[in-house]
């Protein structure tokens, strides 16, 4: 029983972090129909920024989110204005190519700046745990999950309680209608992309604390994150959260009860089964034909 509870708690903790990482990806897709394959590279970039700030100042890496988030927001804004805006009219497949190229360039640049070696961020709690009875709760995962929940709640409040947030959601549901009621859809797209990229600020800082990373680590994350948002329903923020928690718990249970060898496969089997019964994903509104092949 302890084993089961332990596996579920570990899965939920990491699932919370996955949810934060997937939120920006699904937001960008929902509003802009852009599949941002560079999302994983942005996460690793934020992890490197966190690393540099942490080594230079010694400040807690989770506190650096106050710097990495606006930095990534600005980076996202520039990237959108400089590159993504040019393919707005093109099909989603074009965005895959463009953002994949961006990921490659970013990987190369990170290699030049930080080197192709493994980097690790080690705050004092990196290898400590809280113990509750026979259960152990790794501190880094607990703090990471709390920060992730905080950022997700802030994001949700922003999307539901502010005019800009509502404009973003309106643009996602019905761009023509949004335009009719006075929403500047083009400006909203820039803001959305920048916010989506800004979420990688917090996500990257947390990843940097939880795992050693190097420029090539982004492939590991983008494949998992795409899986999560397909499972949850592409474009749906609640879907991404549910999908992330399911994948987190699924991985943990598989490692505990089947074999760690299957952890990377079983979540995709779950996605496969869900999509057989519900092609739009758990919370997706409909399946877009242009995305089905991705």
């Amino acid at each position, binding site marked *: 029983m302890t084993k089961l509870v332990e596996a579920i708690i570990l899965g939920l903790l990491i699932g919370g972090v996955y949810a934060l990482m997937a939120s920006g990806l699904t937001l960008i897709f929902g509003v802009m129909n852009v599949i941002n394959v560079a999302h994983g590279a942005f996460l690793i970039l934020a992890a490197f920024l966190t690393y540099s700030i942490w080594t230079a100042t010694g400040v807690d890496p989770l506190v650096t989110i106050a710097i990495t988030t606006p930095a990534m927001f600005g980076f996202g804004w520039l990237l959108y204005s400089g590159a993504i805006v040019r393919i707005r009219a093109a099909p989603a497949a074009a965005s895959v190519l463009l953002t994949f190229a961006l990921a490659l360039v970013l990987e190369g640049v990170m290699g030049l700046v930080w080197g192709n070696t493994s980097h690790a961020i080690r705050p004092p709690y990196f*290898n*400590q745990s809280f113990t509750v009875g026979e259960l*152990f709760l790794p501190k880094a*995962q607990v703090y990471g999950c709390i920060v992730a929940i905080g950022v997700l709640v802030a994001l949700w409040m922003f999307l539901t309680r502010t005019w800009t947030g509502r404009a973003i959601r309106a643009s996602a549901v019905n761009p023509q209608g949004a335009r009719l009621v006075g929403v500047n859809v083009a400006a909203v797209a820039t803001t959305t992309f920048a916010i989506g990229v800004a979420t990688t600020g917090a996500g990257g800082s947390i990843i940097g604390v939880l795992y*050693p990373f*190097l420029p090539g680590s982004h492939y590991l994350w983008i*494949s998992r994150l795409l899986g999560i948002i397909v499972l949850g329903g592409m474009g749906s923020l609640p879907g991404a959260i549910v999908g992330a928690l399911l994948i987190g718990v699924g991985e943990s249970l598989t490692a505990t009860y089947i*074999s760690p060898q299957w952890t990377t496969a079983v979540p995709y089997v779950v996605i496969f089964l869900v999509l057989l019964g519900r092609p739009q994903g758990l919370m997706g509104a409909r399946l877009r034909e242009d995305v089905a092949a991705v």
Partner: protein
Amino acid sequence: MRRLRWVAPALAAAAMLAAGCGGSDNGGGGGSSSNQASSKPINIGASLPLTGDFSEPGKAARQGYQVWQKMINDQGGLLGRKVRIVVRDDASDQNTVVADYNALISRQKVDMLLGTFSSLLNLPASTVAERNRKLYVEPAGGAPEIFSRGYKHLFFAQQATADHQGDVFAQYILGLPANQRPKTAAYPSLDDPFALPVLDGIRQKFEKAGIKTVYRTKYANENTNFDSIANAVKAANPDVLLHGATFGDGVNFVRALNKVGFTPKYFFQTSAPSFADQYSKGVGVKNTEGTFYAVSWDAKAKTPGNAEFVKTFNSMFGAGEPAEDAADAFAAAQVMQAAVKAVGSISDQTKLANWIRTHSVNTILGPLKWDKTGAPQGQFLIGQWQGGKSQIVLPKDAATSQTIVEKNAGA
């Protein structure tokens, strides 16, 4: 022996990067001019992962080849001819490395070849060399399957293939007095041709000697969930814990062991602990204490020519310890050099291969010798982290520290 891994999309990535980077030639070093009258230089071609996931070890290997080039040219060259090493960049990509070796042979018309880095890249690259009957000494690629293909021109210039990497450690554990000898062992490992055979080799010896296997598992390269594995290891409570790792997974696993609060009496890990400060920064210095690993070379080792290698390396690339991969590459070139000197000609490279197969060669890694498949027949050094530094502890005659820390204080 070190490798970092990539995933499928990296193939495309690497190919694109390679297209941008292309091959880079490296001109001949200085050296005496007494042989200018003799014929043109001997061109030696290699393709190395200078970009992409293996770029750090790839660049280190290039440094090793460059140090050898400088040293041999300073001594008057090979067979009285200057040596010029031509390095292409394969961007850590299997397809590019094949194209590179073909281009080196057919377009750049190099006289000889040297190997690339990692089992993954040497596997296809050695086939190109074999087809062209070119001697192919490779510095890093010890997966057993490389030597199962009956190639006649391929040699691995380290002490042993992966399945024998842990032999010395196994002998040490089995030689402990009965009351100290571990009774149980656990074997979590990355499913990888360079990690798993090491553990299998040790496990067979342990099981034969009566050390009970209490836990055994494999995980995929993409796995990030090490807490569950560490938890299972803790539940199995082995006396000796052996972990088949490359790098990132090795660090993650030690962190996870700390989190679940498990400290085995003996802890052996493949590859990761040989990454010097990258490892200690990853797991925390105090958590390295007592960790064993197998390694091919050490800067302090008193092997012939080692001090001179380190000195030349420092004069060319600045202070600091050369990477193990640089030393391995240097040793590969030393093996080739020994064969050329003994045979006296490079025109028939099958002759060179036949010579290597029947002789032992002194290198900075120590003496190396091979069986008929090109697999080396020696023993790795066993290192151990002690007081925040990595030391060689076995075999005794190569040891840099005479004590062995028996209780693992960290992991």
